[in-house]
């Protein structure tokens, strides 16, 4: 963090966005610390004092980190190019698209397990996750999804006997 002035302009842009993300994360953590503090108001004794001490350390370290990041942000802003290159933009958008897609697929999974059953849900989400993780050939896409679905059934349905619907409205 100390040598922000070094490196190329493109590096400065990457650092700028990473630092901005770090700052947003600091704000999120500070908000979390405040929310946790508010939620425990009214608790008495050590049950209050111990978590409050931890939350105070968290808040202080987040403020410390945030102030460092603000300085870095200003430095990067001065050194980065006015307009990013097309390649930089494309790389950033692709990476964000991939991770967002994987998170979206993962969020969808618990919501569709109950209505359509574990195995169809696993197959569907595997297809979605593979599409976002890369661009496999269609035959590979289906074969891998089928293989993972079969492995999930074997491990969690057959061996561990999870109490969960395997098929839509089917038996557990």
């Amino acid at each position, binding site marked *: 963090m100390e040598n922000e002035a070094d490196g190329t302009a493109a590096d400065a842009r990457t650092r700028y966005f990473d630092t901005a993300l770090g700052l947003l994360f600091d704000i999120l953590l500070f908000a979390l610390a405040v929310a946790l503090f508010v939620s425990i108001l009214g*608790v008495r*004794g050590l049950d*209050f004092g111990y978590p409050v001490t931890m939350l105070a350390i968290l808040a202080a370290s987040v403020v410390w980190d945030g102030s460092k990041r603000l300085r870095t942000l200003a430095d990067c802003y001065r050194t980065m190019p006015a307009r990013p290159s097309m390649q930089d933009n494309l790389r950033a958008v692709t*990476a964000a698209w991939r991770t967002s897609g*994987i998170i979206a697929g*993962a969020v969808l999974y618990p919501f569709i397990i*109950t209505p359509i059953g574990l195995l169809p849900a696993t197959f569907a989400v595997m297809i979605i996750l593979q599409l*976002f*993780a*890369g661009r496999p050939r269609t035959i590979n896409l289906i074969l891998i999804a089928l293989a993972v679905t079969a492995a999930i059934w074997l491990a969690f349905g057959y061996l561990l006997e999870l109490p969960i619907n395997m098929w839509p409205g089917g038996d557990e």
Partner: protein
Amino acid sequence: MNSLFHAAAAIFTSPELLGLIVLGTLIGYVIGAIPGLNAGNVIAILMPLGLRMDPLSLMVFFVAIYGVSELGGSWPGITLNVPGTPASAAVALDGFPMAQRGEGDRALGASTMSAFIGLLIGAILLGTVTESIGSYALKFGPALMLSITVLGVSAMASMTGQSYVGSIIAGALGLALGTVGVGPLTGAPRGTFGILELRGGLPLLPVLIGLFGFAECLVLARKSGGELLPGGVVKNFGTISRTIDGMKEALKYKGVLVMGSVIGAAIGFIPGLGATIASWVAYGEARRWLKPNVPFGEGAIEGIVAAETANHSAVGGALIPTIALGVPGSTATAIIMAALLLQGVTPGPAFLAANAQIVSELAVSIMVGSVVMWILGLLLSRYFARLALLKTRTLIPIIAIASLIGGYAGADSLFDMGIVVLFGWFGLLFERTGVSRPVFIIAFILGPLIEKYFGQSIRIADGDLSAVVFATPLVTSIYVVTILFLLLPFARSLSKRHRNATSVRE
């Protein structure tokens, strides 16, 4: 010694334990060879399976994965110059030049033999030292246990992570989130926001799986996007006899073997340092001792021997404080400790006193595992090394699904699956912003224990905090060491600035 014989009898008469050792060894080889995955990730994902085992089987299975994954990581480092784990990078430094010269088999043999010796020495230390530390620690009061546990978190925070403030945030966040749930003294809910599922605290299993399983596939997706991992072509690998030659050659360097093992076990014992630092320190020491005569970095077998023995004896070293004191020495041992906690077993002096034989059984299982590792290494090393060429676009969805369903399986709860996704996203943010995941998880695991010891010691001291800190000279000394650990990164940063300023002036 007698207990080791009893333990050996118990292990050899149990087909289940032997099967788990072989299975754990195979899994360890596979995950070690795949860059981007490590023992911590896979143990976290496999935890639902472990929760259905008894504590000994769980430890035997997970420790086999942990111990062998480091060797699995060295092989693609030697054959392709793509180390599978950070700790195996030091091995690749001399292993890959040997492979380029057509001596890859010898390098694999030397690496396998050194790993075998390292694991063996680590296991012997584990079997002999742990019980003594544990029985001594049984006399420790809550004030001393508190200071040791705080030291564990501080040491981890000051030694791990790219950014010091990131490690402090990780530690504080872990300790703060560890207090979520019903308070131990008043029974009042804390930080649950009215969510019933959080009354028992944030569930450990989905938090672990999210941070180390699901987050890993998000990190991989950001980095590579489905293309082949960087690497060359596996070449110059032929016969088992040349692998055996490499094994024999490694045995010639007895001094390096012993030095690597001692450094590895000692460094593994200190929370936060672990196998990566152990292998680099041992490599550096071997280089310092032997440099004028040995071409380090150009394919010197001594370099492989030093790094690999340290890398593996650190496994036994890291298990000693985990079992004897309940303070994990590395990320993987923290996750193994979490698995034990989920089974209702709290590692530490009391657990050790009640289950004295478990250490001997674990030590013997590591010895058996090292033999299995040696045999499989001899036969299969060149094939496992090719796993480094696995496409990440295939790996990512598999890790994601296994993490999600693993999160569900712990408590049969879709809410826990949501926690996996949330902490997976947190893990990605941690990675991008320099907040250390290992420090967070160790603080999160040890947080409730710290609160318990703190509550007990403050009651004994009638609410006087100074009486807790100055309870005995040993307690005070440990707090002094804790403060020194916390100041260490500042000292390092100051000395770095001083060096930079001096070089600019020159």
